[in-house]
């Protein structure tokens, strides 16, 4: 669609600008402010330059948290994307099964994040939880509160439980948009199940799949509430992800300078990722309107 060039459209955008300036720009400038200054209290600040940034970039703690966050995102993607595709391929295409599947699968997505944490906190306990109890009666010792491996397993399974449906729903939306004629043509050519997937379904899903990958990567990279409720970053530092660590430094210890510097580095990473996301999304938009 050809858009008309009209700078008066700015007037329509002004309300959004004012609101987002208040809820994003001012807070972000506060962060920038703190990241280059130091204080001894009483609101007296002096210039600290890049000290805080150097402190963050050279700290073992920051790299530890960054590595944990990246590993977590990677593990999540490796499980959720193939699983999501597999389930979407097997979903019913018509009949009463469709709305039933859609509604039930979307349910975990609508649960408040701390309740997701609570559900799994309870579910994994050996004394009162179904999962923990079953594992214990099978003779497997399982305790996410003391064993780092078990803590990781719990959080990964929790995230798979929570978000795989997102991948399923997006892939399903891509699959149902494939015209029947494609499948009939494949049948006539005698294509195997695998070739149908590889040459018809996967290419048709690629755009939605990219969106799913990027969304899942970004959301898992900023995950806070669910692991905070289940493990609180422990045992030790085993599940101390970037955002959990940041909140600990900023609100727990009130170390404004390092927290602000860390926030900005964190935000720059997210910004770079958002740019990738934006490019993918808008390219898809132009192809759609063609």
């Amino acid at each position, binding site marked *: 669609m050809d858009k008309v060039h009209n700078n008066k459209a700015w007037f329509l955008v002004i309300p*959004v600008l004012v*609101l987002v300036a208040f809820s994003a720009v001012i807070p972000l400038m506060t962060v920038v402010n703190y990241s280059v200054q130091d204080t001894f209290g009483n609101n007296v600040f002096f210039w600290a330059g890049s000290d805080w940034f150097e402190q963050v970039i050279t700290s073992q703690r920051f790299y530890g948290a960054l590595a944990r966050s990246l590993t977590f995102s990677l593990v999540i993607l490796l499980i959720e994307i193939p699983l999501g595709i597999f389930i979407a391929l*097997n979903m019913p295409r018509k009949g009463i099964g469709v709305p039933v599947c859609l509604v039930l699968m979307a349910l975990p997505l609508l649960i408040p994040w*701390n309740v997701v944490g609570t559900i799994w906190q309870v579910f994994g306990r050996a004394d009162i939880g179904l999962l923990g109890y079953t594992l214990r009666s099978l003779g497997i010792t399982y305790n996410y509160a003391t064993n780092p491996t078990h803590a990781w397993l719990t959080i990964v399974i929790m995230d798979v439980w929570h978000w795989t449906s997102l991948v399923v729903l997006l892939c399903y939306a891509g699959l149902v948009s494939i015209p029947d004629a494609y499948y009939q043509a494949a049948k006539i050519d005698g294509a195997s199940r695998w070739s149908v997937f590889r040459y018809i379904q996967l290419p048709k899903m690629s755009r939605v799949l990219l969106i*799913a990958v990027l969304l899942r990567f970004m959301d898992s990279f900023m995950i806070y509430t669910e692991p905070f409720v289940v493990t609180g970053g422990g045992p030790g530092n085993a599940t101390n992800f970037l955002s959990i660590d940041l909140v600990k430094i900023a*609100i727990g210890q009130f170390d404004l300078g390092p927290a602000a510097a860390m926030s900005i580095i964190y*935000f720059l990473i997210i910004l770079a990722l958002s740019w990738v996301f934006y490019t993918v999304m808008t390219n898809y938009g132009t192809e759609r309107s063609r």
Partner: protein
Amino acid sequence: MTDSGATRMTAVSDSLMRGGAAGSATMAALGQSEAIARRMRRRGREARFSWLVPTIYIIVLMLPIYWLINMSFKTNAEILSTFSLWPQNPTLRNYAIIFSDPAWYSGYINSIIYVSLNTVISVSVALPAAYAFSRYRFLGDKHLFFWLLTNRMAPPAVFALPFLQLYSSFGLIDTHIAVALAHCLFNVPLAVWILEGFMSGVPKEIDETAYIDGYSFPRFFVKIFMPLIASGIGVAAFFCFMFSWVELLLARTLTTTSAKPIAATMTRTVSASGLDWGVLAAAGVLTIIPGALVIYFVRNYIAKGFALGRV
């Protein structure tokens, strides 16, 4: 186009089969049509068991939720002493506690107030902006659209502390409007993107015809355009409601008592009262209900909403 394509394909495959049956085709064609039939049969057999996968997946999804519901109908003594797959002595005590204690039910009221405020604010400012992005090109439009998206992607952890200081300097801490405004950080961009996606699906000729008919912009927008994208507005509102409802970090940071959300009430009461598992489970079940109630109406748009209007 799709239909004619399908018909053509069926015709081709029909003639193949008939050719084979009449014996006028070569042996190769015959073999091929048999192979097709065999593959179709195999596809049918596969399809018969394909319902197993979503069924198993849904059962796995429902188990933890069922466990929460199961616990919410048990007494604490039963939860801790006996292990049972369903409540032996079903009790409504846990729900009664929540509905009779203001510290509990006010959490729900607070959550609903700030979530509704946020939804109304987000959708109403996003509507004109989304129209501008979908219909006009203007100075800096692409950069602006990208910048909005970065706010949706911003980690709330980065914003928790600055929000606390900003809102305390305005004296807004512990008010519903503070949380509602803070959640605009990610909900306004979300609403703009979703609405832009829906608006781009409405042909531009409708706008032009309305202007020729002498409609002013506000009148056209409210009387003609908004009814056309009603489903889009519904989906945007649903997603704003949802993301505001599930968020805890900012809501908890910005409130202390009088606007405390239910999610934060849950974390506090857990640590204070020595883990009242039954009440905790009941409170959790009640937080799932609002989402479960409206999800049916947006089931076909959920994928579109999560992809920010881009599927």
